């Protein structure tokens, strides 16, 4: 990851591009660093890279994750109890970053606590991260952080929600780096039985406004849902479903097998 000429944003866009050339949406599984423990999370990251992940969204455990539903909140709490820190997330990142672009999901207070945006970006980029999603840093709060991240070669990926007014959505798209993360439903992360009918319209509008790829997350918990979203968007993010699989497995090997099976099925569904 030393070649400073390739930015994180470029690596992210290349990963979406490669999936697009295969005629499918990119698959971006989420995982929580240090959950259920350090070794299992390293095994899960390796399994993601082996089983068809085009990018990896890597959650940094935080005590008060406001954008997350019960599954990921509980995983963060368990990871912290097991001793996870930012260092754990950086270690997981380093272990796969040469194979798959890694995008951190990290709350604003952790960026602040680790020296602020410029220092955090330096640390994350040194571990090979390509980008970061800061779910509690909306447009209006993000400008300085985006600049500092960009200077370090780290893409600040913004979110668009179903409640975002159209003019604001256009502003978000105009400054997006790496990709735009479309939140599928009004709510926190977590599996949903059905995705909202308005999603197609939201994704289409976002794609029309963004020069970077558009990926959808929140609520996608089955290969069929992933395939449905994959027909609309450039990328599909699966989170809580995979965190649940890792939670239910006994030991690193079983966790890796469980997530690998789900990812393989999802890749088949996306290609279909």
């Amino acid at each position, binding site marked *: 990851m030393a070649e400073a000429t390739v930015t994180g944003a470029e690596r992210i866009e290349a990963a979406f591009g490669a999936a697009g050339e295969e005629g499918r949406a990119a698959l971006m599984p989420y995982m929580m660093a240090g959950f259920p423990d350090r070794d299992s999370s390293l095994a899960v990251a390796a399994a993601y890279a082996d089983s068809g992940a085009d990018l990896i969204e890597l959650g940094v455990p*935080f*005590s*008060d994750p*406001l*954008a997350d*539903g019960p599954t990921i*909140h509980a995983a963060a*709490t368990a990871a*912290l109890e097991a001793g996870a*820190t*930012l260092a754990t997330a950086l270690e997981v990142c380093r272990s796969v970053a040469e194979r798959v672009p890694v995008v951190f999901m990290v*709350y*604003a*207070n*952790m*960026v*602040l*606590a*680790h020296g602020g945006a410029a220092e955090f970006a330096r640390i994350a980029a040194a571990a090979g991260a390509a980008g970061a999603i800061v*779910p*509690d*840093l*909306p*447009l*209006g*709060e993000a400008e300085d952080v985006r600049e500092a991240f960009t200077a370090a070669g780290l893409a600040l990926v*913004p*979110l*668009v*929600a*179903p*409640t*975002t*007014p159209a003019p*604001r959505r256009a502003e*978000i798209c105009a400054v997006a780096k790496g990709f735009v993360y479309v*939140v599928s439903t*009004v*709510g*926190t992360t977590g599996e949903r039985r059905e995705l909202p009918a308005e999603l197609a319209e939201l994704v289409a509008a976002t794609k029309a406004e963004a020069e970077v790829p558009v990926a959808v997350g929140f609520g996608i918990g089955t290969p069929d849902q992933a395939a449905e979203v994959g027909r609309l968007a450039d990328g599909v993010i699966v989170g809580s479903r995979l965190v649940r699989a890792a939670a239910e497995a006994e030991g690193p090997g079983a966790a890796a097998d469980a997530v690998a099976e789900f990812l393989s099925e999802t890749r088949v569904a996306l290609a279909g």
Partner: protein
Amino acid sequence: MSAVEERFGPYGGRYVPETLIAALDELTAAWVEARSDEAFMARMDLLRRDFIGRPTPLYLAERLSERAGRRVYLKREDLNHTGAHKINNAVGQALLAERMGKRRVIAETGAGQHGVATATACALLGLECVVYMGTEDIRRQAPNVERMRLLGAEVAPVEAGARTLKEAVSAAIRDWVANVASTHYVIGSAVGPAPFPALVRDLQRVIGEEARDQALKAEGELPARVIACVGGGSNAIGIFSPFVDDEAVELIGVEAAGEGLDTPRHGASLGAGVTGVLHGSLSSIIADEEGQILEAHSVSAGLDYPGSGPEHAHLRDTGRARYESVTDEQALAAFAELARLEGIIPALESSHAIAWLLENGGGESFDVLCLSGRGDKDMAEVVERTGG
């Protein structure tokens, strides 16, 4: 009328998921419109007078004054309907919810005072009400849980973390993220994403406006010091606000030192905190080096919160207000002392302000101290701690 500030110096802002931004914009616009709408404000004034019981008295506490060695006036927020200043904010925000057409209201509560106040305001206006409360607080505050249910509110138990106020706020914010179109979140203190810190300050400012007029009437001059306890800081910002431009008046916020500032068990986020983001705003918070939010501790549930409002952090930095702290033990002693001296059982929160006064008395001039609530709710806790 002051602006609906988004920032107080560097503090404040909106560190929340994108999903909520439109609702925060809507709330800001609704408040700007409502506060210059004469009919709306007339209705608020009427409810303040006839429902809440305002103005509350400014009471010259003679035996307390004698004990402190200087004249002390208590601003009697404990005489409000539901027994604390929380109702000022709850009624105002419930009126705003009604005005915005949001028939479902959510709130968080620690000790239950804000939950009871919100349930009361919702009963008054016929709004659906859900109050998030940590299961540990539900256990400690059973009578308030029963009050909320009697008032028609649903009490939603929160199991996460230490099962207290911080987790209840997080759960309420998550509910709001999921139900933002139909729901208004009545946050209980001058914290949270903009416009909440300014909105709650505006709704609590009535405490300071009344106190300033009453002090001038009683003494012909302004007090030397205005003293209030600070958890999230809504009673303090409410009483401080009209005095901020009176530069000779010292503003003193008293935080919970819990078991001592040299231990991890305290709630002094302004006196012993770090700059950080909690529940949607940048302020002074209690967090570790990794950025994880820590549990606060105080004998008083209302001060048991690891953050304070962003305007307080700014008043601290500019030197306009100063923030002191007293321990659980000092607060418990002050609780008993005021009861015996004045026949007033203060809330454990307000007891912190009394305790600081008792240690910092003497002199010719006079003070105004915000007695933010009554202490009946704290009897069980005090008996358990002190053996009665």
